[in-house]
């Protein structure tokens, strides 16, 4: 286990200096790259989404292909509140999105968490498809394949208007991500987090020692769903539009890819993955609008072949090699 790994209950829960790095980079980017703030806000949103996914994939060992269902529900909740009910306050929308997505997490989790492994994965896929079809068919609410337009978002706290350059979006997403990160970090280092790791590593033994395995899984699934719902709401608020692809299977898959790219089960993998993936995508799509998928594909093959544990795994090994070099 490398030193960037957010361990578990047994690990030292004190903040290490490396953990401030993502935040310093984010703040530096705000001042140094003012033209990239819209992209930055999107990256922050997908980091939050990846973080929610890491909680269940990396810590609880629930591999899902339908996580976009919660992201999408969050996005549509915020969008529908604004476009259909006229509730434009971003924070109210955010809370509502988290609650609805969390509830969906409880309901679907109660069903699917009775299964394990491949069956579970199939069920997440099925639930994702159902959600996509519901969003497509309920076009009086969601706008169907045309998307949900006509969303207006009130200024954050009545002060900060969402601007074309994305300053407000960026800082707003950064603040929400910070709060969620803090919560996830506390969760992972808590006894609850330790029991999740136990379930992931040896399910039977956790049953044997009398841990309420099913309830623990359900709880973390719902929490993860709510976090994904927050991320969805942020996407709606910063883009002021909701399209069907927020509930698509492609998004679920892409998210999993980003997480694996960054490194699973280590919190900061969820930071590195989306950042690397989206910046690469942005640059490649600019250079080769017709062939950029080729570049993304090659990047993934290289990472999976040569960088086990994702980008952070690579960093770990580099750090430990330098450390050895110094000692000798």
């Amino acid at each position, binding site marked *: 286990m490398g030193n960037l790994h957010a361990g578990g209950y047994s690990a030292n829960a004190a903040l290490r200096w490396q953990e401030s790095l993502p935040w*310093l*980079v984010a703040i*530096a*980017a705000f001042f*140094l*790259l003012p*033209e*990239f703030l*819209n*992209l930055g806000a*999107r990256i922050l949103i997908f980091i939050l989404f990846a973080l929610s996914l890491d909680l269940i994939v990396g810590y609880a060992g629930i591999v899902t292909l339908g996580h976009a269902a919660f992201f999408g529900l969050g996005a549509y909740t915020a969008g529908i509140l604004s476009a259909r009910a006229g509730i434009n306050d971003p924070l109210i929308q955010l809370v509502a999105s988290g609650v609805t997505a969390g509830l969906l997490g409880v309901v679907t989790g109660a069903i699917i968490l009775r299964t394990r492994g491949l069956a579970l994965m199939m069920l997440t896929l099925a639930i994702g498809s159902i959600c996509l079809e519901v969003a*497509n068919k309920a*076009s009086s609410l969601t706008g*169907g*394949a*045309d*998307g949900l*337009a006509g969303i207006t978002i009130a200024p954050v706290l009545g002060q900060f208007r969402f601007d*074309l*350059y*994305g300053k407000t979006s960026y800082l707003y997403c950064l603040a929400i991500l910070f709060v969620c990160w803090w919560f996830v970090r506390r969760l992972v280092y808590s006894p609850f987090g330790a029991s999740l790791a136990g379930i992931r590593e040896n399910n039977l033994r956790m049953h044997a020692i009398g841990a309420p395995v099913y309830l623990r899984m359900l709880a973390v699934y719902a929490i993860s769903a709510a976090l994904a719902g927050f991320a969805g709401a942020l*996407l709606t608020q910063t*883009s*002021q*539009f*909701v*399209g*069907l*692809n*927020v509930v698509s299977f492609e998004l679920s898959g892409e998210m999993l890819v980003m997480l694996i790219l960054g490194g699973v089960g280590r919190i900061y993998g969820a930071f590195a993955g989306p950042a690397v993936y989206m910046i690469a995508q942005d640059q490649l*799509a*600019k250079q080769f*609008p*017709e062939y*950029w*998928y080729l570049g993304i594909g090659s990047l993934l093959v290289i990472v999976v072949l040569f960088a086990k544990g994702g980008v952070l795994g690579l960093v770990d090994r580099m750090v430990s090699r330098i450390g050895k070099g110094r000692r000798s």
Partner: protein
Amino acid sequence: MKSIRTLLTLLMAGAIGLFHAQAFAQTIKIGVINTYSGPNASLGDIMDKGMKLYMKQNEKRLPPGVKIELVIRDDGGANPDKAKQLAQELIVRDKVQILTGLIWTPNAAAIAPLATEAKLPVVIMNAGTSSITTMSPYFARVSFTLWQSSFPTGTWAAKKYKRAYIAVSDFGPGIDAENAFEKAFRDGGGEIVGKVRIPLANPDFVPFIQRAKDAKPEVLFAFIPAGPQATQIMKAYNDLGLAKSGVKFIGPGDLTPDDELPNMGDAPLGVYTVHHYSAASTRPANKSFIAAWKKEYGEKSTPSFMSVGAWDGMDAIYQLIIDQKGKIDGDQSMISLRGYKNANSPRGPISIDPLTRDIVQNEYLREVRKVGGKLANVEIETVATAIKDPWKEINKK
């Protein structure tokens, strides 16, 4: 940490330097949002070819010292939030002065608020839902609306047939096509025996066409986005033997796009469509357009109505650049676009309606026939001359 900051600062300084170097060269940047990946990648390609051919042929029309740079971005299909993000970046980062492309209605709808906020002239080269041009005063359309083609289709069909079935893609343009055809067909005394909406993404057409067949109509009216889906629905129509059971197949020209005809076998022979452009048209302006196209892209390549949308879109953009002598202002551009006219488009005379900023053009009835061993949309008659978008005309009253 310090070194990273220095590096970032250096990178930024480099980027700023680049921006300045470009600004001095009197280059007008035009953002293009189109589809270059996924199942509909061929659409972006065929529109690109139209734009680039126009630019190559008309380089000298630009005011002296003015150059045009296309900043091309891929939306991957009907992806409204992606399109919106791309538009935002094109405005903020690349500082484009004109935006164009836009194959998909949802994508165009998503960027409407941005166009309004940034006062950015947007020339829509394809997306055909009637309501789009009402979404932003900075939108002008050079392509078509589904009402323009489907309404005359309904009027024409009602004279020949009594019972029709409607199958359309379940999104803006499809719903427009359905409403337009239904209204005109009913007004003409026809009966709609059934209708179905087909999901936009990854459809399997067989069950839908089977339902149409079971309803036993005299005529099946369908709209799907022009491109690979046109070939797929034609295949389903052929495989299920609708022609043999006496069901005629009609629709807007999206059903038989010129560039897809070679992929369709003999299935579409005898299919009637109404549209504003056919590559087989014998107008002199079209003949020279086709000749230039074949010379540039080879004998096998055929332009479609989308290529002509792109061609005419570039013409409108050139006109607004010339009108303003290379200094692009949002409101001035819109004045120029509102007065846009071209008597010699490959599709015949066109203009932009100053009131609605929407295209005014002729609509032709065509039948798919074999011409010189190849399928072609042969224009039979002009069913509507200088037709404005019927949806806006009807809703005005």
